[in-house]
């Protein structure tokens, strides 16, 4: 399993186009929004957590089809299916690799981009914490969506149509927790709810995703 993890990460980093792209996309979104709504600091500060969350979500979405698609095309997914690791384990590891290469950089970069949006000081901390809790769910849900659409030739658009509605609860609780934290309110409830969604996704979705992969490989 560790071998698979290192292989996936190495592929993601070296193959080009995947690793930095999500981060660059995130930066572009954070740059474009001020152009759209105007440079007033108060307005930007108010919408910053929401924009950063939506930006992270879309950046995550960009690289989802790479989770299984390339392996499916060159046949290594079939090898993985017959390997001694259960399919569920493969899915979980691939989602973890996706998170390490896409989710984690976003989490680290978000506070910096928050500065671009003139977010108040406590915001740096809260956007970091909420994204750290929420992005594993994004990767896992995304892996499920990618498993559903892996056999399709033009699955990209469909993938976003399938995955984005599934992101709604994570987005709501994540952005809410960040906003409340920045406002100085108690945000324990949304934080716990968000953590709960992440744990449920990580615990149950590998089974659903593995089932979908098996159907697609049949």
């Amino acid at each position, binding site marked *: 399993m560790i071998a698979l993890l290192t292989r996936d990460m190495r592929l993601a980093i070296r193959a080009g186009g995947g690793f930095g792209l999500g981060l660059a996309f995130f930066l572009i979104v954070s740059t474009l929004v001020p152009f759209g709504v105007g440079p007033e600091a108060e307005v930007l500060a108010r919408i910053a957590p929401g924009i950063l969350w939506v930006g992270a979500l879309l950046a995550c979405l960009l690289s989802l089809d790479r989770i299984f698609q390339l392996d499916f095309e060159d046949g290594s997914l079939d090898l993985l299916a017959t390997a001694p690791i259960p399919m569920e384990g493969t899915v979980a590891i691939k989602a973890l690799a996706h998170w390490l290469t896409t989710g984690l950089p976003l989490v680290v970069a978000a506070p910096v981009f928050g500065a671009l949006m003139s977010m108040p000081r406590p915001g740096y901390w809260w956007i970091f914490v909420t994204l750290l809790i929420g992005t594993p769910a994004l990767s896992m849900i995304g892996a*499920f969506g990618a498993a*559903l*659409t892996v*056999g*399709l030739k033009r*699955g990209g658009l*469909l993938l976003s*149509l*399938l995955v*984005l*509605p*599934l992101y*709604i*609860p994570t987005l*709501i*609780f994540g952005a*809410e927790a960040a906003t409340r934290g920045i406002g100085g309110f108690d945000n324990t*409830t*949304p934080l716990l*709810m968000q953590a709960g*969604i992440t744990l449920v996704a990580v615990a149950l*979705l590998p089974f*659903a995703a593995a*089932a*979908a992969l098996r*159907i*697609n490989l*049949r």
Partner: protein
Amino acid sequence: MPEMRRTKQARDRINFLWEWANPVKFMWFSGVALPWLIAASALLMGVGLVWGFFFTPEAINFGSSVKIIYVHVPAATMAISAWFMMLVASVIWLIRRHHVSALAAKAAAPVGTVFTIIALITGAIWGEPMWGTYWAWDPRLTSFLILFLFYLGYMALWGAIEDPDTAADLTSVLAVVGSVFAFMSRYAVNFWNQGLHQGATLSLDKEENIADTYWIPLVMALVGFGLFFVVMVFVRTRTEIRKRRTHALELRERMADA
């Protein structure tokens, strides 16, 4: 197909409930039941709607706009029920692999989508005079919009996959996972924003109910919409089964030619 049907029949003798999953039996039963269902749903919808629109008093504070309730509430109820029916049908397909079940789930999706659109539009039309806005990010409204998105994704997945059995499998998995997330979204949205929409108008708990004058036509419309949904699902499932049969016949012909 033929030998599959035979093994299925052998299994069905053990458990009579699953007999209706046999395509032949389903075609027979739905063919017999359809005229009655159509008549009943037309009668109930007609009487309920006409009664509701023309023979109920106008409510204080609401004016005649209250009458949209006879379309809005049944449509909204059926939109949710349709998704639930799809979930049950999908689970049956995943566990017992009855083709009629998968086809019924496929057939129900567009019907449910249309009910969702009707509920959203009638709600907007009602909301303009009452709340002063066509759309508000109220929990109920938002959940319906999310439900609509789920319907769209489900149908798009059906449309995208060529092999019918793979499509049935994948959409069933999506229906199960989607239901869990739709449910979570419902409560997340509740948490996110307190709304304008009134609470439940109908419930078995009598105290909350609206006055009887509105209640009887509303229940008629509700049952009428429900039967209409069954009619639509039957018709669409029959079409799907016939489509499969024609496809099988075409294949057989091509095999004979070759």
